[in-house]
């Protein structure tokens, strides 16, 4: 294991502790109520109560396609931000060429941003 990875060991331990505790907190009530509670299932217990109304439709309806556009725009600028990290710490080796490479990359995406803004794709109406 490289030195880098061993620094992440506490996080792994925290994840393990978190999973264990959440299992306890979720599992213990289920276990206790299963052991000591009474279970008398009835179809009437799942029916709509008093002023409730029957479901209009299936809960898995179609999404508006506009959400997809938001997700695509998010991915594009997410990747742009991700490319900035190795660029920022390796400028010492890449120098001027690396600087201008990123500027050109940013300009390409800025064109896209201007287009999206102008055409109104960022508005929600």
């Amino acid at each position, binding site marked *: *294991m*490289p*030195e*880098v*990875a*061993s620094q*992440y*060991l506490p996080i*792994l331990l925290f994840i393990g502790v978190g999973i264990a505790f959440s299992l306890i907190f979720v599992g213990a009530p289920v276990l206790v109520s299963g052991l000591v509670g009474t279970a008398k299932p009835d179809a009437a217990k799942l029916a709509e109560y008093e002023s409730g109304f029957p479901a209009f439709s299936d809960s*898995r309806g*179609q*999404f508006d*396609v*506009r*959400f*997809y*556009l938001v*997700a*695509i*725009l*998010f*991915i*594009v600028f*997410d*990747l*742009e931000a*991700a*490319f900035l*990290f*190795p*660029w*920022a*710490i*390796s400028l010492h*080796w*890449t120098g001027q*060429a*690396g600087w201008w*490479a*990123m500027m*050109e*990359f940013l300009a*390409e*995406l800025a*064109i*896209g941003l201007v*287009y*999206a803004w102008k*055409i*109104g*794709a960022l*508005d929600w*109406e």
Partner: protein
Amino acid sequence: MRRGGRTRRAPFRTAPSDLKTLVTAVFAFYLFAGIVLLSGAATILSKNPVHSVLWLILAFFNAAGLFILLGAEFLAMLLVIVYVGAVAVLFLFVVMMLDIDFAALRAGFVKALPVGLLLAVVLVSELLLVAGGSVRVVAGEAAAPLDGFVGMTNTQALGSVLYTKYLFVFQASGIVLLTAMVGAIVLTHRQRAGTKRQDVGAQVARTPASSISNVKPVSGEGVSL
């Protein structure tokens, strides 16, 4: 994970005698790799496509853990940020947007089975052809830094070639992103008639003189503003 004595360069900075670290690393590797395999299988086996995407996210997380074990921090974070944060959400949107009757899709399983098996056989034989013949990974050697990158961290080494040696590929990826963006806008964006939009400029340009007026209402007729 085996640390044989045949590597000349020391790929790991920890001492080879550090048995506890090695045991932890091996344990973590099998934990992550096992979960990746199981959740990968669950991705293709689960009946509900939304559950499939959630299993895929679990697989991504554990693949990120494998990257961290290799010391590739940046790739691990990229996997979490880009794949879990964005691509998986996109998959969920697509699954939820397409109103497909998945029971009807599965009905053709037996009919499509021969074609699927044929494809699987082709893919497996290709994999064996590539991995079985020429590639031999000596333990440790794969993780050793290449000659030009001594003294750099993993991410710095990545950046030092990405923006110089692979400049055109990098710029091409920018163009691809731009195309994806413009394509998505062209395909999905449309002006909806009858919706009220906020016009910030008009709001700011309002003055008291243009927005207040005196009217003398006639009884029974109301006012028009």
